């Protein structure tokens, strides 16, 4: 044994020492990790933006094709109130569409779990919801719901619902067989089993589906504006994007696009936070000390 007995290094101290931070305790480590976790994406995006800016300047890419980040920034500042209003309108529609898709999607998946006839009957068709080209049904939607908000929310819902249904279904049907039998032992009814067992078991899957849907709801709202118009209301990002494209305001077009992406990201991060919060006590994906 090379290491002298007197040497008072502990395993955890070793850990700390390696990273060059004094061994104050576990909370420091956690705190430091949080800093890294937040800083990394920021550094990453700054790095990307720098490359973009440089590339565009060096290659002399015309602005109408690919504006530099600085151009986009200027355009965004100039049209800021419009951008904000457009983003706000899209946000409202996307949020409603997303919430409805979560509610309805979960309900459909639960129904499919509860009755095999429903499951067999509609399983193959649920996918149709997301493969219908929205343009085709838009006239019907607009005629039923009128142009504007209602239709946009509905289209956002249509676009965003399938991942919820599909993942919830997967989760519900992945439930541990032994726990199902346990519930059966206690003569739990179908619905009780679903609520007390299958639903919580499926939660990580559902939340995964919601992560996917969150971005899709935003894009759904934008597509909704393309196909269903804005009615009498103020337009959202969909209108701004179309209009900017036709007017060749490429920088503003990118500003709108980035606003759309930020909106999607905000949705996503909210769902991710909810997911982490909900699962932190028990699910591997949220405990994750092994991976972070």
């Amino acid at each position, binding site marked *: 044994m090379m290491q002298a007995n007197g040497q008072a290094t502990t395993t955890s101290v070793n850990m700390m020492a390696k990273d060059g931070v004094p061994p104050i305790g576990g909370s420091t480590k956690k705190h430091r990790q949080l800093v890294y976790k937040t800083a990394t994406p920021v550094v990453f995006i700054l790095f990307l933006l720098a490359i973009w800016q440089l590339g565009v300047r060096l290659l002399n890419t015309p602005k109408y094709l690919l504006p530099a980040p600085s151009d986009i920034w200027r355009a965004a500042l100039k049209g800021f109130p419009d951008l904000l209003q457009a983003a706000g309108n899209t946000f409202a529609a996307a949020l409603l569409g997303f919430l409805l898709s979560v509610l309805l999607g979960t309900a459909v998946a639960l129904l499919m779990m509860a009755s095999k006839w429903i499951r067999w009957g509609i399983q193959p068709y649920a996918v149709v919801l997301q493969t219908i080209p929205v343009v085709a049904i838009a006239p019907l939607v607009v005629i039923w719901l009128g142009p504007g908000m209602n239709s946009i929310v509905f289209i956002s819902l249509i676009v965003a619902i399938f991942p919820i249904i599909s993942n919830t279904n997967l989760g519900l049907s992945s439930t541990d067989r032994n726990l199902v*039998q*346990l519930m*059966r032992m*206690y*003569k739990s009814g179908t619905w009780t089993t679903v609520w007390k067992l299958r639903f919580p078991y499926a939660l990580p899957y559902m939340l995964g589906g919601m992560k996917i849907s969150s971005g899709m709801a935003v894009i759904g709202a934008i597509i909704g504006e393309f196909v269903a118009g804005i009615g009498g209301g103020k337009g959202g990002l969909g209108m701004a994007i179309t209009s900017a494209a036709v007017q060749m305001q490429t920088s503003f077009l990118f500003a709108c696009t980035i606003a759309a992406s930020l909106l999607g990201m905000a949705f996503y991060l909210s769902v991710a936070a909810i997911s982490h919060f909900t699962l932190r*006590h*028990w*699910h591997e994906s949220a405990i994750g000390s092994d991976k972070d």
Partner: protein
Amino acid sequence: MNTTAYLETTAEAEAIRIHDVVKQYENGTLALSGIHLSIREGEFVSLVGPSGCGKSTLLRIMAGLDQATSGQVQLQAGSAANKEQASFVFQEANLMPWRTVLANVALPLEINGVPSEERKARAMASLEKVGLAGYANSYPRQLSGGMKMRVSIARALVSEPKLLFMDEPFGALDEMTRHRLHEELLSIWSQSKLTIVFVTHSVFEAVYLSGRVVAMEAHPGRIKQVVPIEEAYPRTNAFMTSPVFGEKVRLITNTLS
């Protein structure tokens, strides 16, 4: 879907009757073959036998968790003919990872619609019986293997079942804890005229606890011998050192080998 036929209540004190039960799994494994067994109400019966001989399979079939390939399973769930009165301790702890220990134990009560306050009190009492009252708010992943099994036992006891199936419940416990739970189980059993079917790989445990020990053999799973343990309850430590005890243990051990 529970396909085990429940019988109407009659004067006859038979709780479970197994008639010529055969179980073949889809992959062809013949887990049970020609099983006949009748268990009286209030009896404490143990199943012992080598690993893989079909103890768990038979227990599950009795409890209606699995279906026999052929044969007849008849169940009479307690004198009150109340179907809610059966419980099962699985070979694995089978806890819900998203529930705290207390909520896991309270689950059967929750399903039966017991009000929240009563539920908590009874679950807590049940946890105390297995020595885990201090861990009520922990999550299963924060427990040791033996602690998880004890939570599972507490869950089975909390609903005060009339019929209790236990699949190696004490296998993961040290002898001290195990002995404490033996006494606990026997006291519950004698107080409430409970019928217990108990799987164990410890012949000592089987002899100490049960009124009859069913010795099984493997390939295919069959009953080799049913050994009655005539010793009266309550059984004491003296019984464990008595010649009768040793004799029974030897008899069963020999049967098994």
